[in-house]
């Protein structure tokens, strides 16, 4: 592997801590302290992914992100202490591929880095996959014909029930399904108070496909209404 990752933060201790974590996973790390350094460092073709903080001196992370996007096409993960929805949406709409809030969970961070690298380096063209009839949603690719779900290119092993649930949600991305509906469609029975049963299965699916199952990106609960597949 040995991909080079650019870590940008005005706090050197944080840069150091992230670097140690990443190096333990076998990545090479380049460091930068502000936006301008980051823009400069990204010109190094060895850099395959950027982890960048938002609030920095000289040039803030989001502005740097815009400049980097002009020069390179590579995955950028924003790492920020701003945890509000509006901040996340802003970051993602400025061209970030992922948004991780501080204080971060090291395992989750590594998982996200790995996921982004896989998608940028190992996987084929998204549009080509779509043409093949595959359903693509962020890191996930679902083949409805073969009923195969892949996360970052790796096939996810699902039980038949889980497959049915994934099939239902993937075919209707963004649509909210009440638990009863899911139960009726998957188990082919009417049921009341099936919330627990459905939730158990959804939790298992999350553990298999989500980077952080506690804060899922894909299968989400719409509180008081049902469940849905978030479209990325």
């Amino acid at each position, binding site marked *: 592997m040995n991909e080079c990752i650019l870590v940008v933060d005005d706090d050197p201790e944080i840069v150091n801590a992230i670097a140690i974590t990443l190096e333990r996973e076998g990545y090479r790390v380049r460091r930068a302290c502000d936006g301008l350094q980051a823009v400069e460092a990204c010109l190094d073709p060895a850099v395959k992914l950027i982890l960048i903080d938002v609030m920095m001196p000289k040039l803030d992370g989001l502005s740097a992100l815009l400049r980097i996007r002009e020069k390179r096409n590579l995955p950028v993960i924003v790492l920020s202490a701003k945890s509000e929805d509006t901040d996340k949406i802003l970051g993602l709409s400025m061209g970030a591929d992922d948004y991780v809030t501080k204080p971060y969970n090291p395992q989750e961070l590594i998982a996200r880095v790995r996921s982004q690298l896989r998608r940028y380096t190992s996987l084929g063209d998204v549009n080509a996959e779509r043409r093949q009839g595959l359903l693509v949603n962020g890191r996930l690719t679902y083949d409805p014909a073969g009923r195969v779900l892949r996360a970052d290119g790796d096939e996810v092993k699902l039980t038949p029930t889980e497959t049915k649930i994934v099939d239902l949600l993937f075919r209707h991305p963004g649509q909210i399904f009440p638990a009863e509906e899911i139960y009726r469609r998957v188990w082919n029975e009417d049921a009341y108070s099936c919330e627990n049963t459905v939730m158990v299965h959804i939790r298992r699916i999350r553990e298999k496909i989500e980077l952080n199952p506690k804060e899922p990106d894909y299968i989400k609960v719409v509180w*008081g209404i049902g469940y849905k597949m978030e479209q990325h």
Partner: protein
Amino acid sequence: MDTKWNSTKALAGFLAFFLGVTLVISSLGAVGNRLAWERDPSPRWETDWQNTAAFRDQVSQYLREFLTIGAGGEVDFYSGEYWEDYGGDVAVVQEEAARARWGFYPITEAVVVDRGTAEHEAEPDSSDSDPAKPEKEQDPDERYRNDKNVLYFIETAEGKTYTNTAGGRAFFLARAVSDYNFYLSFQDGRVSIVKDGKGLDVYGNGLYNEESQWFVPGYDNFPVSEDLEGVTVYMAARRIPQRYYGVDYKNGGTYYNSAFYSIAQSVEESQSFYRTQGLLLFIAMWCLVLWFALRKSTEPVNKKIASWTVRVWTEIRFLLVLCPLAAFLWTFTGYQSIYDIFFGWGNSFSEWGMAVLRLITMNVPALVVLFWFCWLIHNDHKYNPKEVRRSLLKPFLRGLRARDLKRPVEKRLSRRAALMILAVLLLGAETIYFLIIFTVFVGYPSWLLWTICFLPMLLLVWAAAAWARGNLSLAKDLGRLADQVEAVRAGDLERPLKLPEDADLRQTAESLNDIQAGMKAALEEQTRSERMKVELVSNVSHDLKTPLTSILSYAELLRQEEDLPPAAADYAKIIDQKAHRLKTMVEDVFEISRAAADQLPVHLERLDLGKLLRQTLADMDGPIQAGGLTFKVELPERAVMITADGRRLYRVFQNLLDNALRYALEGSRVYLSLKTMEGSAEASVRNTSHSELPEGVDFTARFVRGDASRTDGGSGLGLSIAKSFTEACGGSFRVETVADLFTAIVTFPVEEER
């Protein structure tokens, strides 16, 4: 027993009051009436009728007539011929004054009878040529003979005697005949009187004046006529006069000759009247004393009466008072008295007082009735508040007022102005109508009258119109002011109220605009400071998170070090745990401060609260299974639709369940229930606390926990966040504690099923 005694006392007290007051009014009224009308005051306090002025007057009159007989003249005291000889003009004038002072009643009666007799007897004299009347020669004392109340003996200068008693001169000289106690003798031009064996001083200082009691000749300024030379008259008056009757069988008719009898009767009557009234007043006084002693216990009776009278309409009361008043005013005496009181300019003060007294006492029963009506009304007003009294007019007026109040204030004011204008116009029209009538009937227009009436009328109409116009514009401004106040109250701080420069309410409007501007400034300031507060918290939270990130990262790295001594590994673990807790707290503080500043973004949508609770339970299945508590869940099958932010509300119930898991007694049951009632949904989480719950603690306040040690994992913000989030979503949150039972209740209004 006791109550019976009390009610007896009350009744007795009230009856005493009633009797006493009635008696006092009626007897005082009767006495007052008598005083006001009585012309001769002398018999009022006199027990002996012979001591009255009327008696003395009558005696003087008798003497006059006897002396006339003695002098040989005609007995016709109205001719006045004799009197000129008797005493001249002075005497006649004096007599007129005396007659006026004595009044008319006793004398008129006596005179009429006497005169009738005299005329009758004088008739044969006037027709002395009539041969059919043989008894032409009649004694001049003929008509006095029958009246034995007066015995007389007249001896003329020629020695002729007239008498009506067989006793002769000796009878009078003895002065001690039974039944007769008053003796008068006229001898040698002097009058001497003996009454009850005692001589009376007749002439006083010898000059006749208004204070002299006896109108008899013999004073220095009232000399005896020469005609009376040698005339002697004796007369005696009976102690107790009797009535003597006579019948004229020739011409028909009955007469009686009893001047003294009348005087005695009137004295007797007067005495019995005053005695009776005195007795009545005495009884009344004792009644009032009794009432005064019992006045405290009569209260229930008064109350009872008030409870009866409360049903009487106010209008009826008015009429009831008016009726006895009318009895005073709508009679001739009433008018006369009122005329005397207000227009009797020449009257002295005592006469004026008498006129007042006459008016007041003219109808004593009406006076009594009037008093009791007034008392009843007073009593009623004392015990019955204004609200419970009945009136025919009141509901009508109230209805009018209620209708009036429904209109905006400017309408009300302008309606009142219109009413005023209408009244003035009617008045003007009426005046002009009467002017026209006058012109038509008199036949020619009285230009002076027209001018006098028309010009002020014109002025009045003009003034009323000007007043109404001013009032209308004031009403309009007032309406705008009221609207503006309402608008400011509703939160409109943008548009100030602009009134014209000369408006009455200009100053007030300006003040209101100032208040509005002040409120706006205060609100902006408040909003700004809230925003600053949130920004501050946001910055602080960010600044806290940056070092926290380092701490957490290095703690994690430290944990991954394999060759640490076991103690150091433990320390690293503790640092990691506490740093995580710090992270939670920082996030919670941030959220709660945003909620407190109303800056919490909420995404409201229709959702099923029951489903949300099931999802929350399912989501937290892991911790619940691990918690060792039994969850008793009672959720309705059907949807309970509310409007809220699902994620926030999930956080609320997550916190509540967390709270239960954290603080509930090991192995106890946690009750989660959702109930709908009267348009609201109530979700409650109940658990038994593992530690004693302190009383009087607001668990929803920030950083408050059941135990004060703060060593457990909670931030102390769970319930506070739950409350803030619930309220941000439009629900209400409350905590109830009963002993160790902890209940958190979330209430939301239920959406109607669509």
